[in-house]
Every structure is written in C-alpha cells, then in structure tokens.
C-alpha cells in the first residue's frame, strides 16, 4: 500500500471485529477448513502486490461475503456494518489507485487470490460467508502489517 497511500481506520475496524469475533467464529463449525489460511495465500505477498491483493480480497468481502450472511442480532449487524462500510471506502480508494496504474496485480498474486476464491466457492454459500467473516482477524492483521501509518518524529 505504500505506493497507494490511503487513510485507513484499521484501529477501529479491528476494534469492531474484536467485539464480535468469538460470536462469529463460534458459528463456523468447519474448524478443519480455511479460506484465507495465511501460509498458503496471504503469506509473503511481495510489497508491490499488496495493493492489488488488498483490493481484490476486499472486493470479495464487499461483493460476496457480507451479502451472503444474514444477521438478526443488532450488535453483530452494527459490527459488520462498520467493517463493510470501511472496506467499501478502502476498496473505492484503491480502485482510484488502480486507475492511476498504481495497483496492478502480478501473476503470482492473481494465482494466490484465485486460491482464496477457490477455497471460498468450494463451500456452501452461507457456511463460506460465516467462515470468511470469522477469518477477518487474519485479513485485518495482514493489512495492518503491510500498511504502516506515517512515521512520527
């Protein structure tokens, strides 16, 4: 993200997820399956691919994951709304970077993103959505580590 500097609110997104993490993860009964498993996909993405990988994964969440999950508990609804709207803001900003050719994917990153999509689409729609929501801590940690706020004195 370094070439494509956008203002993120990672601290509050992480706080929102932290409040609903256990409730969401308990609904995921497939403990032996993972969509975002760090070691296969998000691990050692080159810095130049971080922007496009972020844009694509956020796009998966915005276009599919949040939509495929129905939630009746207002507390969870509010937490997910914070994250969905924040992802939407970030993805829209990254789209503008793409238009300025600052956010292109190289082959390896595209392949890794396809692994994620494959993992997601192997599962039944609702089970996949709840698992992907439960793995937001993996995604948020990865984004935090690849995006450093401006150095201070």
């Amino acid at each position, binding site marked *: 993200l370094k070439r494509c500097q956008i203002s993120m609110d990672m601290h509050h997104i992480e706080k929102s997820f932290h409040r609903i993490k256990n409730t969401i993860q308990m609904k995921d009964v497939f403990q032996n399956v993972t969509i975002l498993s760090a070691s296969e996909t998000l691990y050692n993405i080159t810095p130049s691919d971080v922007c496009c990988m972020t844009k694509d994964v956020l796009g998966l969440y915005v276009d599919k994951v949040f939509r495929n999950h129905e939630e009746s508990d207002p507390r969870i609804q509010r937490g997910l709304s914070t994250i969905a709207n924040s992802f939407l803001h970030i993805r829209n900003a990254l789209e503008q970077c793409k238009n300025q050719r600052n956010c292109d994917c190289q082959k390896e990153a595209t392949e890794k993103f396809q692994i994620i999509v494959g993992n997601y689409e192997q599962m039944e729609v609702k089970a996949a959505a709840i698992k992907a929501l439960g793995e937001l*801590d993996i995604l948020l940690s990865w984004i935090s580590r690849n995006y450093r706020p401006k150095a201070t004195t």
Partner: protein
Amino acid sequence: APCVSSGLPKPINVTFSSVNMKNVLQWNSPEGLRGTDVVYTVQYLIYGQKRWLNKSECRNINRTSCDLSYDTYDHEEQYYGRVKAIWGKHCSKWAETERFNPWLETQIGPPVVALTPGEKSISVVLTAPEKWKRNAENNSVSMHQIYPTLKYNVSIYNTKTNKKWYKFVTNHTLEFPQLESDTLYCIRVQAYVPGPRRKAKPSDNQCITTLKDQTSELKVK
C-alpha cells in the same frame, strides 16, 4: 482402556493464557468434582488442519493447565485447545477454547529496564521482551521483530516535585538530561503495539537517585 463418555460434567472456562507467545491452556475443574481425584486429557487443533492432536505431556494429568507453547509456536496460525475430565472409567465431553490467534492475543511482557544515574541525568537502556523459546539454545526472537511498530511508553516521576510525565519512544536507549541532582526519580516502562486493544504488562516501578552535585560538594569542603 478408553473411558466411557458419561454424564460427567465438562471442565469450565477453558482459555489460552499468553504472554510473549508462551501459550498455556488453562481451565477450572467441573462443578461438583472439585477435590476428587479427577484427571484431565488435552488435545489441540491447528485451525484449518484435519485432525485434533494429542498433547502427550498432558494426558491424565491432575493439574488444570497445560503448556502448549511448543505446539502453538507458529504465531501466523490460529488454534483451538480442548480438555476433558476423566474420573475412574467415566469421562466428560470435550470442553473447547474459542479460536486463539497468538499474534493478536498474546500479552506483551515488560521490557528489561537498566537505569544509570548521572549527576543531573538518568540513562535508560531498554531490552525488548523476547518471544518464548522452544529450547534455551535457540536464538532469541525479540517481540520487536514480530511487532515492528512496538513502542515504549516511559513514565518518570519526580518524587520531589510530585510530577509525573511521559515519553513515547521507539528506540532502546534514552536519556533524561537536566534533572535535579540528589533526587529520587521513579521510572516505569510499558511496551505497547498500536492497534487492537493488546494487553501489555508494564515493568515494575524502578526508583533511583541522581548523584550529588560534585561542584557544590567541593565548595562545602
């Protein structure tokens, strides 16, 4: 012979307690079985992998904790732990933790703080806490390497003026110049990582007296 899964109550409050990636599974004994010779058996699962794995060192133990640091060493993964109670031929169902994410949930321990008093200054050298090591011979991994944004919140309390103030630093050495000589100052340091509410243990309060002012000493002689 395998125990019979009967109505034995499950262990309760099964959680991971983690400081500097030393990850210990702990639980409370089930209601109604306290004080009896109940024993416990532990398993763990690496999230996304197929099978639950036995922790051989924690089979049929009577304590209510089990160190899983070795098995949960990769802090990029997430884990579950589970424990069941065994009493004679009867055993309870498994009691499971929530999904445990060491990178997010470990508590950052206090740094090592070395103070050196000067006449009107105090030098502070900080050593970042280290990640739990699989064995003593292994190279140390500093928590600073795992959390590059790790910072230190250093507080200094002047016992004469009763004022306390803070310095937020990223490097490991700092000096408090222009202090008052022959004065007791107390310093406490907390390592912290900006981001989600990660718990952090501050160091103990260390108090030290700045040296006497040599020049005024000579005058007095």
